[in-house]
């Protein structure tokens, strides 16, 4: 299959909050139910969790005219082009797929949680499992953009189930065009409407047409890969590797010199030993 760069386009202004995307996700990915306490609104979960990869957020917002807007947003992994989780992962478990999306290789994941700490959108979470001996271990979990479906030429489960066509899936170019067109249509109704495809993370593979500013939806206005992640991965780790190189060289050096000057060293030690008595 010739691989193109695909994008999920979410038009929140078409969403009617039915939550079928959440059900489709649980169903396709075989994720367990999570009993949740009442959140004080219709929203089921406060945020995505390790076993609930997408959550429909319900926001009560007072608009410029003092009217109440009930805003819905399908929230799941953004699949950043320049993903912090991929950057910080020490085991290369977080990786980019051939479709440009971000996925976790559970075999490699050691559950260190760096990705959880560095995700600018608070998407990645750790799931706890128990092995046969009852010992607990953790793995990072998040939306995979149904990569197993993409590999077979099918759209993600959430997209196929959306009955208002609030979600669409296609090539990046086509989806961005659709987003622009939709934005021009809704500008009058929602003056603050915008396309959310943040540059700070190199653009994302889930792009939104938002009716209001990102902060209204609880999204960072300008998300970026945390500086600490850049320092860690781009500077500290390479330097660390270099240092490791230096240490090994020193070891080799020490070994060689020890071999060469073995006799002298030995004499020296014997001398030292004698000195104690």
């Amino acid at each position, binding site marked *: 299959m010739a691989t193109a760069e*695909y994008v999920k386009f979410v038009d929140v202004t078409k969403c009617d909050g039915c939550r079928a995307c959440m059900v489709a996700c649980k169903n*396709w990915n075989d994720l367990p139910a999570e009993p949740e306490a009442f959140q004080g609104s219709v929203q089921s979960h406060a945020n995505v969790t390790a076993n609930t990869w997408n959550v429909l957020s319900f926001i009560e917002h007072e608009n410029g005219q003092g009217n109440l807007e009930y805003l819905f947003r399908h929230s799941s992994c953004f699949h950043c082009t320049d993903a912090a989780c991929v950057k910080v992962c020490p085991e290369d478990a977080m990786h980019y797929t051939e479709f440009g999306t971000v996925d976790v290789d559970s075999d490699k994941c050691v559950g260190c949680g760096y990705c959880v700490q560095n995700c600018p959108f608070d998407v990645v979470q750790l799931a706890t499992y128990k092995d046969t001996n009852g010992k607990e271990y953790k793995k990072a979990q998040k939306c995979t953009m149904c990569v*197993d*479906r*993409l*590999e*077979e*030429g*099918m*759209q993600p*489960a959430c997209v*196929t189930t959306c009955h208002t066509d609030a979600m669409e*899936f*296609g090539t990046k170019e086509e989806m961005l065009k659709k987003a622009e067109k939709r934005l021009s249509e809704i500008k009058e109704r929602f003056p603050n409407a915008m396309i959310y495809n943040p540059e700070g993370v190199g653009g994302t593979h889930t792009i939104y047409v938002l009716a209001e500013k990102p902060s209204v939806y609880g999204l960072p206005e300008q998300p970026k890969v945390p500086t600490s992640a850049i320092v860690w991965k781009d500077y500290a780790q390479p330097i660390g590797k270099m240092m490791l190189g230096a240490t090994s060289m020193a070891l080799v050096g020490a070994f060689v010199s020890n071999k060469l000057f073995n006799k002298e060293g030995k004499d020296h030690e014997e001398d030292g030993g004698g000195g104690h008595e």
Partner: protein
Amino acid sequence: MKKSVVSKEYQKLQKEIISLQEQWKTSLDPDRILPRIDKAAMESGVPVVAWTAIDFDIPLFLQWIEDIGKLLANYQPELEKTIETIKGLLDEETAKRWIDEAFAFNHIYFASFAEEQEIDGWIPQFIAETVLRPYLQLTAEKVQGEIQYAVHGAGCPVCGEPVRLAQLEDGGKKVLHCPRCLAHWHDKRITCSHCGNEDHETVHFLTIEGESAAQIQVCEECKGYTKIIDTRQYIVKPTPAMLDLNTIHLDFVAQENGYKSAGETKQTN
């Protein structure tokens, strides 16, 4: 998840054949095909091709056979000799006969042809059918605007191929597709496309675990089946011919469960 049981290599070959047919079709002079829409005949289930005057270009037909031969030889070099033999046998008269017999889907003729010439049984009909399709497809293209519905039990309204493949399209509409001539037409969701049975008690669906986009509609009245594929879930819609091939496991499942690709017509009296 894995959607098809067909090997990647065979899929690739089929894709190449389809694109070859597409090229052939565009190279055809459209005026060579003059379809005649006879409403009365269509209503009684006579396929459009039966009323269509097709002026076959025999040299072009032979050229296509050479093209397909070359393509097949890329995959199975030992076929090259057989293709050469066939090319030697195909004079203008035999070529005309091939067209007629391929039209009528006369497998008996092709089987005996193969036997006489001591070549593999599948080759003559496969080649004849492959090179006939561009003509059928161009016919279908020309009359598609007139095709809305088909007569149940009569197969494809353009070429007469038995019905076996439907797609769910925008708004959940069931659209039947002919993998042979690529014509398409509508039908009701809970209706057997073979016998027209609308009784929901006797029209069932077979679903296969792990198949999120495919179902087999079966009819207890005529024992016919139709593969129904929800292509709305696909990123890129495949051509009906590829879709038919890639869902061949559904045909096996349906047939193993006692259903047929052409329903039985019941004696009314």
